[in-house]
């Protein structure tokens, strides 16, 4: 994700090739995109479900999916969505999880990331990135680290607290997914939009991700070991962390985590995890392992959790022309 948006888009267009499955393309065209367009609220945003109230997170995922969809989306849908997102920004540059809330949180990363291709959003994104870079988690504050050093027996987990990522909510603790999303937001944005302290924040955050890798590879929410017991990795945090680290140099823990994802791919039975696992492996240019599960079939067989985010992630992962985390040339 280190390349500027326009360069990435050009590269992807040049290497674009039709995927092996027309069924997948049809699914995007005939289900995902109409679902998302139909679920857009009059205020331009999306709720987690069709007919629910607009929230920043699903709005970001829907915009991301429609921006990358292989079919033409009428301009007014994306324009209204962008306006909705800009209107939701708080005075301090952050974005809140709900319309009534006056404190920003992790969705600020998603909003910055999704608005970053648009030059007109420079001021908003810059303000958001500044807020992010000034938001340090409280658990790893220097004075806490000093206290921890001198308090015996306070070692529930074995994290290296010198690393600092981002929390779900301000002034709490670092967790894998919000850290990954913040790294992505910084990577996605043009250089001159970022605050000057961003390289140091990114370095600490990348260090945190590697520190939190589970012993067998992959990530869970951020507890690789609690009371000495090994934590099990989960697909979504693993996918988001690997995507955030995609442009970083080779690292033994990254390779181990990719191996974990490949090894567990066939055990995925839900569309959200399958979509993000696929997006991740294709971004790294890895062949998708054989599986009995196909994304469109999962939607056909079940109908309970058709959320905006699950449909958006599915749409993204099945869009061969996507410019956000494009398929690497040797994928599949």
């Amino acid at each position, binding site marked *: 994700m280190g390349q500027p948006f326009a360069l990435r888009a050009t590269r992807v267009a040049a290497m674009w090739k039709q995927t092996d499955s027309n069924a997948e393309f049809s699914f995007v065209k005939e289900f995902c995109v109409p679902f998302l367009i139909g679920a857009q609220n009059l205020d331009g945003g999306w709720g987690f479900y069709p007919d629910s109230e607009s929230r920043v997170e699903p709005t970001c995922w829907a915009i991301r999916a429609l921006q990358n969809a292989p079919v033409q989306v009428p301009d007014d849908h994306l324009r209204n969505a962008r306006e909705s997102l800009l209107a939701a920004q708080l005075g301090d540059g952050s974005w809140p999880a709900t319309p009534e809330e006056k404190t920003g*949180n992790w969705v600020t990363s998603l909003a910055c990331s999704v608005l970053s291709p648009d030059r007109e959003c420079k001021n908003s994104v810059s303000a958001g990135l500044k807020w992010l870079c000034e938001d340090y988690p409280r658990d790893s504050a220097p004075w806490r680290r000093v206290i921890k050093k001198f308090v015996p027996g306070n070692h*529930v987990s074995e994290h290296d607290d010198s690393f600092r990522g981002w929390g779900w*909510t301000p002034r709490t603790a670092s967790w894998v997914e919000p850290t990954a999303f913040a790294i992505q937001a910084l990577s996605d944005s043009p250089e001159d939009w970022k605050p000057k302290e961003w390289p140091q924040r990114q370095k600490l955050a990348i260090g945190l991700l590697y520190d939190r890798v589970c012993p067998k590879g992959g990530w*869970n929410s951020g507890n690789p070991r609690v*009371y000495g017991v090994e934590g099990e990795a989960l697909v979504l945090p693993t996918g988001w962390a690997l995507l955030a680290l995609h442009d970083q140099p080779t690292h033994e823990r990254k390779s181990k985590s990719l191996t974990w994802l490949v090894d567990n791919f066939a055990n995925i039975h839900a569309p959200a995890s399958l979509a993000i696992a696929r997006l991740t492996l294709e971004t790294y240019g890895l062949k998708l392992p054989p599986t009995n599960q196909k994304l469109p079939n999962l939607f056909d067989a079940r109908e309970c959790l058709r959320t905006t985010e699950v449909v958006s992630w599915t749409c993204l992962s099945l869009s061969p022309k996507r410019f956000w985390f494009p398929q690497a040339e040797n994928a599949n």
Partner: protein
Amino acid sequence: MNRRHQELIPSFRRPISRVLIRHAPDYQRELGSGILESLKEFHLQVRGKTVLLKANLVGLDPLGILNTHPAVIAATREGFLRLGASKVFIGDGPAMDRDTESILESVRLREFTGPLAGVFRDLNLDDVARVALPTRASLMKELYLPKTVLGVDFLVSMAKLKTHHWAGVTLSLKNMFGIVPGGCYGWPKNVLHWAGIDNSILDINAAARPDFAIIDGIVGMEGNGPIQGTPKAAGVLIFGDDPVAVDATGCRVMGLKPEKVKYLAKAGILLGNLEVAKIQEIGEKVDGVRKSFSVLEEFHELRE
């Protein structure tokens, strides 16, 4: 909307609570009829009402040891429908994994309940309303809570009989952590940990009080719960309309002292009955079904 705000009754004015312990050796034999009989004991006024079964779905669980067992959830849903409830929803907001459908698939809930469309509510992603916290036990003054929880007529907390590495035990009151929406607070809902787990449990239960509690103790968990502990068969289901009394009984079944569990001790003052003298046991007696659940060293003082 906020019918969940119920009056806090001082302990000296509270009536005796009834708790039913039912022997249930496994998840197969006569579970449905046993649960229906147990619900009937409480003469619940649910005819024509909407019910939410707030299950405990904490993670991927192909062996059926972490979460409220799907057989118990399905049988309870059937029981409430047979009692005349107009709609019975199942819901939870898992704390550690946002792919709720993966969890549902891993526990095979659909196989037990039938299609989940329109039945299951992911409380992490529900529309929310801001609710003032009447107890102010934690540092929080208000919380966003799911409109589904606030809107139903009858709320049932369906927990698993487990020890917990931070709270001591996790039963029907701790299970209510799952109504706090991840869509607002993340995965995990770390803001509650920073506000203080014990006091957050009180605040949440005072703001959205369960009308009924059921604990799945057919197979529970001991040691490093709620996820990394060891399965422990206790062979019981525990029912009651006072969640504090149900949890106190659950503790005693595990061989633990409820008054030593910090949040339960406070809940006994604010929310329900904790003392043996104020709990009428119906069905099996605690002494007849007690098992000794191991706890982490930090919670050694909970042992009876």
